[in-house]
């Protein structure tokens, strides 16, 4: 009980953390029943021009230190993905059995794996695979999801029913199970993994886009666009999608992180990248037997996955805060 009491009403915590809280409180208008301060309303950014939206977004993102750090980290990962294979100290697919399962040392920073391959080089080289799969899978899910969601939301009627029922069915199966089933049908391989992971996350995007379209379809300016005689497709792409953009961007950023996790999971199960291509999940799956004998083989690839996923999650959270003023009050 006494622990709860510490937060009681007239207690005053340190000032540094206070200030932010205060601003939030005022934004919500709860602290002062008679509205002590003119509330600075974060008005709907709906009708603003995209230029402003980008600028606004960048400004709020810049204010979020965690998101900024993660953005830098993500950019660094992209650089590693691009130049990684050229800067690895060893050939990431060169085996040297005499040197297998060596712990980290000056020559091999992260040690060597069961085949004597340099783990550091493989972790660096694996960045490209994870990022590529993440980005491609999300692109597939995003484009398909946007198109399906837009059609469903815009057309309505039986088209909507059919599309959304199929989405419901896909959501009724855990995504990793669906992805594995897809992999079984498509066969092993990284390209198949991209497709499988992309397909299973279509419903999320379709739902978001459909929901957004339904909520703004009735808006006056859409009706106005109709009156002016713009084609439906043009209306969708010029007017409806930009409005759903912020939600989609946030979702897609978080989607990259789950795509990377799924890739690693498929790799771990031996379904993704085929050896000797370096991939983090696959490295973990193959080194599993050496868990007590050579823990370092399992440590670094896992850290790489976690750090990458964490960075995209942080970035996604930061973007959400930056793009959705209402989320900021949380």
């Amino acid at each position, binding site marked *: 009980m006494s622990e709860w009491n510490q937060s009681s009403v007239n207690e005053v915590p340190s000032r540094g953390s206070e200030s932010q809280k205060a601003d939030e409180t005022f934004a919500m208008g709860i602290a002062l029943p008679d509205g002590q301060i003119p509330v600075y309303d974060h008005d709907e950014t709906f009708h603003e021009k995209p230029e402003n939206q980008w600028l606004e977004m960048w400004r709020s993102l810049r204010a979020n230190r965690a998101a900024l750090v993660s953005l830098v980290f993500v950019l660094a990962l992209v650089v590693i993905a691009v130049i990684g294979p050229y800067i690895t100290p060893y050939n990431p697919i060169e085996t040297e059995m005499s040197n297998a399962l060596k712990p980290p040392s000056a020559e091999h920073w992260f040690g060597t794996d069961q085949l004597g391959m340099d783990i550091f080089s493989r972790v660096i080289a694996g960045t490209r695979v994870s990022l590529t799969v993440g980005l491609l899978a999300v692109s597939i899910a995003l484009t398909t999801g946007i198109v399906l969601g837009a059609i469903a939301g815009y057309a309505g009627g039986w088209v909507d029913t059919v599309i959304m029922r199929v989405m419901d069915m896909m959501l*009724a199966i855990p995504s990793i199970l669906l992805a594995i*089933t897809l992999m079984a049908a498509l066969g092993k391989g990284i390209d198949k993994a991209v497709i499988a992971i992309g397909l299973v996350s279509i419903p999320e995007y379709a739902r978001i886009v459909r929901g957004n379209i339904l909520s703004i379809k009735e808006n006056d300016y859409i009706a106005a666009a109709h009156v002016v005689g713009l084609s439906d497709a043009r209306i969708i792409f010029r007017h409806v999608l930009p409005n759903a953009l912020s939600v989609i961007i946030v979702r897609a950023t978080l989607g990259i992180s789950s795509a990377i996790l799924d890739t690693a999971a498929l790799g771990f199960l031996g379904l993704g990248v085929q050896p000797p291509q370096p991939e983090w999940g696959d490295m973990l799956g193959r080194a599993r037997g050496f868990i007590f004998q050579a823990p370092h083989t399992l440590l670094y690839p*896992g850290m790489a996955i976690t750090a990458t996923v964490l960075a995209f999650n942080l970035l996604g959270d930061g973007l959400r805060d930056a793009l959705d003023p209402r989320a900021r009050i949380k």
Partner: protein
Amino acid sequence: MLKYVIKRVLMVIPVMIGVSIIVFALMRVFSPDPAPIVLGQHATIETIEAWRDANGLNDPVVTQYFKYLTGAFKGDLGTSYYTKTPVTEEIFARFPATIELAIAAIVFASIVGILLGVVAAVKKNSIFDAAGSLFALVGVSIPIFWLGILLIMFFSGYLHLLPSGGRIDVLLKPAEVTGFYMIDALLEGNWEAFGNALQHIILPALALGMYSMAIITRMTRSSMLETLGQDYIRTARAKGISEGKVIGKHALRPSLIPVTTVIGLQFGSLLGGALLTESVFSWPGIGKFTVDCILKSDFPVVQGIVLLVAVIFATINLVADLAYATLDPRIKYSSKKER
């Protein structure tokens, strides 16, 4: 309320049929032919054809599907290509293990997640809040299978505290009644077996539940923060009741409403996560088995498992919705819109 439940159950049927069509199409149309895998490399074309005939694989796909569907309604999901055992038997032999693990994981995730979420919200912007947020962030970012590996390394390899895999020591295995070893052990009054089963389930439950715990923490925190800003919290404080009651009763209960939905959804996704956890911890459940069957193109088993998982998924959602309604008196079943 019964009417609502029936309506919801009826709504699930078309989804299940759809799911079965998707899986059927994936398995029978796109997947590699199981015959050579089942019969081995040395099978002749004749034996393969004979096998395909025997298993109905040479019929048109639509015919195959309707045969399967009528069988499924009668509770017959076919037999495994490999073990020749009925699929239902194969599944139910392994399912309790998975459900036991999933329940342990969701219980851990809910208790710890709600606790952390509440503390983070009540002590907003404090060190507890920051630590909770960081923990939650890592929780959603860490791959289940790697977390499992780390747990084994630390608790089994380094501390020698907990077993690294399996459900129970073979010698202590209780007689199967429910298939849940912990319950079976209690039914026998065998405390040693219960303790042993408990020791075995801790690490996989932690690994499996971590992601859900993180999601529940975040949800509880934001929901709790919203509730704490409500006028009725001020009313409660103005009554002069203890702060523990203000938080633990007036703020917690409304905050838990959205959390129950999340818990329901998370329980569903745990079944997917179980695939990975089970393979890390050699947990004799359905997860590892599923992966093997998919890779071996054991169609009937895979179809059965996916259908069953989808049914469970739907059931959990229904239960979560009902829980939601008991927590929130404003919800009326009749006026509730379809999802």
